[in-house]
């Protein structure tokens, strides 16, 4: 096991992990998670992603240490839904805040302060605004974590030593095996054809 949380990666023993098998170096893992390949840089990754999209592959992803502009468009990803979460959060903050303030100030605790009307919408605006802001911010983060599949304590890709550098200087394309049309051989051929190196089969624990 080369889990980033449990053990240091050990480059001297690449074969010690039965879940990570370089292509051609041995039998495939029992339960395949994905075929992964390394690419030299952002330009190569971008060009390769275009070709993978053109093949109509489903269930694949690019990994990079930073956001590469336009990569999600090339991958034909739909627009992120985080904005919807933000909107719902903001709306519920506004409506919930309005109900909270109005019900308490007008009906439950009608306290006369300086003769101001119980229902003073103008004076309620700042707090409505702030409640809208805080709930939309919370919901944006919730939306982002849910849509990114986070939080996650473990991921099969972390078994692969080299992949730990995906947050530093390496670029990868990973074709996942969970799609019905997935074929190990054609995936390997495709990754080789588009310039991938260090092709590796990543297994999953059963």
């Amino acid at each position, binding site marked *: 096991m080369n889990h980033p*949380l449990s053990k*240091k990666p050990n480059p001297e023993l690449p074969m010690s992990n039965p879940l990570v098998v370089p292509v051609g170096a041995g039998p495939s893992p029992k339960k395949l998670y994905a075929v992964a390949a390394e690419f030299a*840089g*952002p330009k190569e990754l*971008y060009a390769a*992603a275009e070709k993978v999209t053109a093949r109509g592959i489903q269930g694949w992803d690019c*990994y990079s*240490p*930073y*956001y*590469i*502009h*336009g990569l*999600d468009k090339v*991958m034909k*990803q739909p*627009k*992120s839904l*985080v*904005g919807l979460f*933000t909107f719902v959060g903001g709306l519920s903050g506004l409506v919930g805040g309005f109900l909270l*303030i109005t019900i*308490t*100030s007008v009906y*439950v*605790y009608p*306290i006369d*302060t300086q003769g*101001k009307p119980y229902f*003073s919408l103008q*004076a*309620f605006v*700042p*707090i409505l*605004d*702030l409640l809208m*802001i*805080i709930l*939309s*911010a*919370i919901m*944006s*983060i919730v*939306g*982002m*974590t849910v*849509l*990114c*599949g*986070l*939080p*996650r*304590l*473990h*991921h099969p890709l972390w078994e692969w030593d080299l992949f730990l*550098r*995906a*947050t*530093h200087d390496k670029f990868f394309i*990973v074709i996942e095996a969970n799609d019905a049309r997935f074929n190990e051989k054609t995936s390997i051929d495709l990754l080789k054809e588009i310039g991938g190196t260090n092709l590796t089969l990543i297994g999953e624990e059963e």
Partner: protein
Amino acid sequence: MSYFTPSTKLAPARYDLLDKHEEAEREQARLEMIREPYVNNGYDAVWVGDRIASVVENPAPLWWYIAVAVAGLFASFTGLGLLYLITTGVGVWGENNSANWAWDITNFVFWIGIGHAGTMIAAILYLTRQRWATGINRAAEAMTIFAVMCAGIYPAVHVGRVWFAWYLAPIPNGNAIWPNFRSPLLWDVFAVSTYLSVSIMFWYVGLIPDAATMRDRAKNKILKYFYALICMGWRGSARQWANYEFCYLMLAGIATLLVITTCTVVSSDFSTSVIPGWHGTIFIPYFGVGAIYGGFCMLVILLVPIRQLYKLDDIITLRHVDLCCRFVLLMALLITYIYGMEFFIAYYGGNPIERYHFFQNRMHGPYEETWVLMMLFNCVVPQLFWSKKVRRSPWLAMLIVVFPSFGMWYERFIIIVCSIHRDFLPSSWGMFYPTYVDIFTFLGTFGVFFLLYLLFIRYLPVIAISEVRAALPEADPHEPPVVEEAQPGVAHE
């Protein structure tokens, strides 16, 4: 027949000269117009990551320990001051019947203002696509959070009996009372707590990919767990990045709205009253500008030592210092205009009490020296930043911005104390003098601020690694990196 033909002997030589001159001028213009790179010396993404991570990974330098000790000592002043205040009563502060708001609210507005510049850099400059800000936005956002923490101490404590501070929250209770939602002071509670929470969220989201980088680099097991928890299992897949960037954009928009709301609410504490010097519609932009002014000054004070002592000067370049100083200058000009406008409206409005307040009490009253220093520090000293040479000398720039930092504190003191120590009834006029508890508690907040900041630079990457990397030319998959051509008449900044 040679009447109209130019002299064949001289002309080519002259045209050559002209061409050469023009070429030299064009070359000069081109060189001036080329935008400086975000990272100097052509360093690549790997270097950027190593360099920034090295601040955290290398053993702490000696000055860091000394700085922590000094900051910790100062922070204890605040702790002891508050302990004394709570166990004894608010009487240990110098407040009295005429000046019932004094240093506490001055310090509150001072610190909350410092926070605003951080949000301005991280959110507003992000929305306006000022990519140079990637080099300093993490540091600026951290400044926001710690400054708002320091600010939050004061309103919480000055309520007097802090153990009743929970009355401010809308919690059902047995006393049949409820917060008054029409009161600017309650708006303040909501504004400050929202500002702190959203700033932390915004900062945290920016930190996620960098925490993943630090997790995968960490050799120490405890630190690895720490970073792994922060990044929640970030992998950096393109699908994650797309959602992440969208979330960051949303939060930048929210934070922009919030920073305007917060300075509006803080200024409403004053402007909704009827006291001359407070009762002005200019207060919202006044507080916004003042806040960003003070915050940029504090940012320069923080950034210059970080870039010099940690040798981060290729990432926090001279251009960053230059641009921050330009912001300081811009805000100085705006604040000068606002000061002038306050006096003009006091004169033009014709209200004798307001005229007395501005032209007698502020300019020639008992706090005259503070007013003169404020004008000098806020309006005159920053004019030095018209010189490019000054803007590009980091230590000198840092020295200069210390003055407006003081000046902005004086400004808040004048707005608050100078306005209320003489009210409509001359028999109740009085003076405010700070006690030693006031002074030590305020000095201590600097200790708290710098202590938190020192811990931040020690344990978290002080610059947003992934954002700086994404701003490098090599990160752009579309074009080979080209040197920008000059377009005469088009400014690139």
